[in-house]
């Protein structure tokens, strides 16, 4: 059973993780006009402090415990049973840490080129929303955070993106918003129905999940309402078409965050809310979800192979990778779910890094067309080397992080979803195809005139990428500290599901 860890630190660390970026955002917005030089510094301080806090959280998080830690609960709207309820467990821990460290890297590593004040303000607000989504244990609070995220992302794409940014931003916003509308209805219905079992009106996730007993039909409808919102967010085939547009049109920083953490709000949502609240319905929906996930794996990989735009290629590869994560999530074996949680982080690291690298290519060449690029390895071998490591991580080479997650997902899904897993494994072959083919066309060959002056990686870029490469290598060789923290919470969730579906 998942139970709230009663031990509460005196210092409200989780609340700080959400509030700090908000404060940073406000300070940036206020300082922007009068003191532009301070503005950047305060964005930096805010994000670096948040990163430090999240790393500290990682340090003090108790390994081997299943329940929520550092729980912070304050009444908010008493008559509706809504509270500011935050907590972290093994499932959310690494997503929180990833959110903590990804933002300062993006803020330090990428120049917005124009309108810096609003760019940084939106970035920090985005961070607060993402943090809140991963930490919320209250349905209402989660919904608010889930929705808040859309706004800064919309403005980041529309304000700092490429040619078709307005179209892409609008599509992203409306599509996700439409999905969330279902979830809002679902949340309210959940609370109303749970009222009968619990005797009180509450939006508290843990109370509802542990106490409510939905009828089979009601549970299925409720699950579906959540599932639509998350399926769009992940995105799960066939709800994925906003993603290539959003990714391609978003500025590099936006793409990194989008792939790195935003998509994970969908997969995390499935696990934390979909499966936890409605285990029976989740089991019922499994065959359909497995099928969509596996279609996504193969379909995303094939579509990625044929892309002419490097960024679009990476975007489609995300569809395939997220398919693996959804497959593992619903396989509901300890290996598969632990692998899925780890893969959420891995995908954030390796795809985030790929978007950074593609961004660097664009900065130099002002194109992302694969056909325009050639022979870059010859003129920029270190840049090519970094790209190779990241690419192999994405391909799932053993010894690098991507393999650990992918392997756990597949080996854990083989029992509950044998034939789906066999087809999904074909996706591993295709991943090698689309990435290596792209690499061959972009990096190999004799550089032509336009590419022969391609600048080698700079020190700033090198330092930025070294963080990603370090995570890729270390967590691939020694994933134990990560797995040890994820597994107990996953085991508790699985036994919760098993208890409810017996």
């Amino acid at each position, binding site marked *: 059973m998942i139970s709230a860890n009663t031990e509460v630190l005196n210092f409200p660390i989780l609340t700080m993780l959400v509030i700090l970026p908000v404060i940073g955002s406000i300070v940036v917005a206020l300082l922007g006009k009068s003191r532009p030089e301070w503005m950047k510094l305060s964005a930096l301080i805010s994000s670096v402090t948040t990163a430090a806090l999240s790393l500290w959280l990682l340090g003090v998080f108790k390994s081997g415990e299943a329940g929520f830690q550092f729980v912070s609960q304050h009444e908010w709207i008493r008559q509706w049973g809504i509270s500011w309820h935050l907590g972290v467990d093994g499932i959310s821990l690494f997503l929180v840490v990833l959110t903590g460290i990804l933002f300062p890297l993006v803020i330090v590593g990428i120049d917005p080129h124009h309108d810096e004040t609003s760019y940084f303000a939106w970035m920090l607000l985005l961070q607060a929303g993402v943090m809140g989504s991963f930490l919320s244990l209250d349905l209402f609070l989660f919904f608010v955070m889930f929705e808040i995220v859309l706004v800064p992302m919309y403005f980041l794409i529309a304000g700092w993106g490429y040619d078709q940014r307005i179209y892409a931003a609008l599509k992203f916003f409306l599509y996700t918003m439409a999905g969330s509308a279902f979830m809002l209805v679902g949340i309210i219905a959940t609370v109303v129905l749970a009222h009968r079992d619990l005797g009180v009106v509450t939006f508290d996730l843990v109370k509802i999940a542990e106490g409510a007993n939905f009828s089979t039909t009601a549970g299925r409808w409720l699950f579906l309402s959540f599932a639509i919102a998350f399926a769009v967010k992940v995105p799960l085939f066939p709800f994925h*078409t906003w993603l290539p547009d959003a990714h391609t049109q978003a500025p590099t920083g936006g793409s990194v965050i989008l792939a790195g953490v935003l998509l994970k709000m969908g997969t995390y949502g499935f696990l934390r809310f979909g499966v936890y609240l409605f285990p029976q319905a989740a089991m019922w929906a499994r065959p359909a979800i497995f099928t969509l996930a596996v279609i996504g794996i193969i379909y995303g990989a094939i579509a990625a192979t044929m892309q002419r735009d490097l960024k679009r290629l990476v975007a489609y590869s995300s569809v395939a990778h997220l398919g693996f994560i959804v497959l593992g999530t619903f396989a509901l074996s300890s290996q598969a779910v632990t692998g899925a949680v780890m893969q959420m982080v891995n995908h954030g690291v390796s795809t985030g890094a790929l978007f950074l690298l593609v961004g660097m290519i664009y900065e130099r060449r002002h194109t992302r067309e694969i056909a325009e690029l050639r022979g870059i390895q010859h003129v920029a071998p270190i840049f090519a080397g970094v790209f190779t490591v990241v690419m192999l991580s994405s391909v799932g080479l*053993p010894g690098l992080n991507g393999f650990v997650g992918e392997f756990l997902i597949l080996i854990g899904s083989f029992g509950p979803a044998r034939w789906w897993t066999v087809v999904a494994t074909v996706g591993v072959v295709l991943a090698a195809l689309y990435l290596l083919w792209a690499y061959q066309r972009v990096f190999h060959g004799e550089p032509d005139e336009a590419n022969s002056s391609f600048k080698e990686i700079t020190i700033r870029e090198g330092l930025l990428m070294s963080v990603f490469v370090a995570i890729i290598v270390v967590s691939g060789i020694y994933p134990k500290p990560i797995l040890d923290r994820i597994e107990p919470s996953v085991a508790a969730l699985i036994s919760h599901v098993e208890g409810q579906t017996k």
Partner: protein
Amino acid sequence: MLDLIWLIPVLPLAGAMINLVFGRKLGDPRAGWVATTATATSFLVTVLAYFEMLGLPAEERSHIVNLFSWIRVGALQVDLAVLADPLSIVMALFVTGISTLIHLYAIGYMHGDAKFSKFFLYLNLFVFSMLMLVLGENLLVTFLGWEGVGACSYFLISFWHTRNSAAVAGKKAFVTNRIGDFGVMTAMFLAFHSLGTLSYGAINESARSGALAQVTATAIGLLLFVGACGKSAQLPLYLWLPDAMEGPTPVSALIHAATMVTSGVFLMTRMSPILHASYEWAPTVIAVVGAATALYAATVAVAQNDIKKVLAYSTVSQLGYMFLAVGSGAYVAAIFHMVTHAFFKALLFLGSGSVIHGMHHEQDMRRMGALRKVMPVTAFTFIIGWLAIAGVPPFAGFWSKDEILLYVYANNRGLYVVGLITALLTAFYMTRQVIMVFYGKANWNDHSAEHGAHGDITPHESPKVMLAPLVVLSLLSIVGGAMQLPFGENFNFLERWLAPVVEESEAHIYETWAYQNKYLLLVVAIVIAIVGIAASVAVYSKSWLKVVEPKVLEQAWYYDAAASRLIAGPGAAGFNLLAWIDTNIVDGIVNGVGSVIRRVASSLRRAQNGFVRAYALLISLGAVVVLAWFLLRGALL
């Protein structure tokens, strides 16, 4: 010493790390010496481990060193652990030994290359991966090495990546191998799902005890064989290996002849109890694929004119021989042939590299000839390699090939005939190669040849650092057969050494006609070799017979061309169709729904753009208010 076996892979890894950090500073040739020293030290450790193991009683020759826990979730408990047992020590011995020689050779061969230190970085990294593969205690550690050698092979095939053909060949190798990896991965899933473990010891034990269902054993065995077909270049996945010759020749010798490509044979031997517990037809499948590959590649080798392509197809053919052995239950013979083949094929490849080096990067045998006069050492050692592979006694290849044929005869006479024909063709095409390169007329100073811009070339003998490995390998190719001679108990050293690992799965043939008449089979093998050599001499040296090299053989029966056409034609069209459907149908529906809603909305009131912006602003404002309110309350509480 056995507790230190982890040093065997770690030393080359350390070499790679040194060259990663300091490679450019060390430069040519010091980076090469660092790498060579690392591999040589690793070899030394292996030799010490071997002698220590030799001192132990046979049943105690299995030692596991657990380095750290790697992937542990629930019932899946996989550690990064290495296993020293007779099989892994044999593998490690020849891998480190031959690697050292080839590293040494490469110092000379790669001299002057702009990426000299990077070459040795990759080479060391390869040796590390290869050693993880053979020393792994469980399937997953082996898979780590398996994929590692694949990645290094990719790096090294496309080492001269500005050349498009090299870049394409590297990618082709990696992707084709991945198709095989599909088999290895699903085999692991199945093994874990039915046995709850990936450890060799536990899996093989349950196969021996009968705890594993026959159908599961068959599935695991054949899925692993799919992986073996990829890595060890068997039909239908062999396609990448001839193209892999785009890599520098030391790479061809080390990775694509002596070590990596034998991984599949190793894996089959490691899992031999699984094959033993399978349905009877499962090993037959392996034997048939092996025999078909052996014969197929041998016919193709007959018509190749590129000095390395002959050797490449020859390697595919010899690997087929090893799988023929595996499928016939002749695991000892398979390993025996793997080791002798590593000696003579590495020798032949390095010899061809020496020729290419001396011929200023000419690889077409039609422009060679009479080179024995200008390259005496290369020629002499190459001729020893030729005798070894052609199956002439007492050279190494004769004994191992004969051992395989003996078991195959006992198992299936049809396949024995295929094996004999392959042996005949092998002797034939290798003799052809020796004649074209080292004998006959010198074609390299022939002005009439369309040599184009190159003009005249003056072949020269290679430097000592390249010749020394040739001499050592030729010695090994002469005496290598001594480890397993068919003269009874006192001479079958390898069989006794490997007994703890394969004894139970090995076919028992002592009662068969073949075994009782093994000297007769020996004579048949000798006659076959002589016929092959004589025929080749008659055609290529004496011109008594007309040269028959049909285009269909030169083009490898058009299999590669057909596969390429399939991928470039219907394959690419299918992929493009899906991409089109995604943009125009899946996304088209979304945009269609969107525009309908938009029209409805705008007919209701405002312009859609302003609507969204207003909505977005409202939400953000609302959120800020909500947060502010919370903050206030929080402060009050």
